[in-house]
């Protein structure tokens, strides 16, 4: 397992794994972490804002207005407030990823695990995108670990 920490978002760690078994083991070893994964979709018949609000409201028992404001502030901070009212099938890969990541952020876990970002962001320079997004959300999460395969290591070089 290779481990690297990039400068811009200091709480970000990229963990490069040799294979699927190692990835599964790492996830199992961190049950307190919230996973952002292709296999854990958003609620399809709720908008992005509702997906965040419902989780926040359920966890903290806050009023809907308060939860909406928090969720909208997060979306604005990430630079994706425009997709707040859209539902999952209408989202781009980036918007869907942001919604999933923010759903994890509102739960304030000790660790957020971004599982195989290449699956979540197939048509983009995802290391650059992740770096920029996590930088925008700095202060909103404790630790964010990116789980990727070792063969994608060149993508995380400084020029990528």
């Amino acid at each position, binding site marked *: 397992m290779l481990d690297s920490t990039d400068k811009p978002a200091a709480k970000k760690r990229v963990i490069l794994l040799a294979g699927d078994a190692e990835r599964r083991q790492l996830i199992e070893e961190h049950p307190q972490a*919230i*996973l952002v994964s292709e*296999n*854990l*979709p*958003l*609620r*399809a*018949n709720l908008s992005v804002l509702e997906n965040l609000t*419902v*989780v926040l*409201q*359920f*966890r903290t*028992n*806050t*009023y*809907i207005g308060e939860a909406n404001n928090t969720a909208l502030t997060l979306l604005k901070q990430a630079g994706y407030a425009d997709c707040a009212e859209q539902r999952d099938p209408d989202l781009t890969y980036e918007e869907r990823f942001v919604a999933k990541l923010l*759903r*994890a952020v509102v*739960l304030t876990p000790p660790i957020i695990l971004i599982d195989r970002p290449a699956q979540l962001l197939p048509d983009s320079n995802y290391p650059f995108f992740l770096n920029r997004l996590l930088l925008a959300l700095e202060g909103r999460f404790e630790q964010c670990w990116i789980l990727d395969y070792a063969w994608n290591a060149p993508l995380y070089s400084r020029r990528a």
Partner: protein
Amino acid sequence: MSALHAWLTLRGHGVSERLFAWVRLSRFALAALIGVLSPATYNKATRLVVQKQIYFTAWQILPGFAAFSALFSFLIIEIVGSTARKYGFYDYALELIVRILVLEILPLMTVLFIALRTGAAMNTEVALMKIQNELDALQRIGIDPMRLELLPRVVGGTISVLALTAVNIVVALWLTHLLIVDFNPWTLTTGDFTRMIGRVLDIPAMIVLWGKTLAFGFAVTVIPISEGLSTPKKLFHAPISVLRGMVRLFFSLMLIEAAALGIVYL
């Protein structure tokens, strides 16, 4: 001989599968009942889902459904009233209408409409949530899907069935008074109407009526949700799940209706 053996095995497998489905449904119904009665289920998020469910199941259709119900009640009242008048039983028309329309037809018609509209939608939604891994996703991020997504639908759906039935009954009673007493006042008076209501809708009849409606409301939400939850994670199973859910729901509603009739008339 081997063909007979294969046929019997297939039949036996089918029967055991159906039995197992009913056992699974009963287990879920019991868990739902406990969950619904538990105060720990409710917080601001779950109450909001309950409100939304009531809005989509009852409030959204209220004007149209009340108008349809009024038209239907009008037809039944007219048919029963004119037939009773023709055969010289007009004094019994009121009681006949209340017994047939208010106690039997309207609760059943309401729940069948909700089953077609909301039950089928709920079954499909839960099946798709299961197939697309949405329920697992909630569980994985520490949100109990039973508490957030499923129980509020049971509560909202049941309240909606009770409320729509109550509205339909009030409309039907008002129409009965209007058509039988107000428009044809030569044989029956408002006093006759009030006395008849007091006699027919006595406490045991009300207990059976609202007990039956409550059971209808519970069945129309619990059965589709349970069927949706037991859908295998393959997209082509979604229509099969809805089909099974609706058939099971229909038989359960008929069973509840028959049990209520048995209690009242046997």
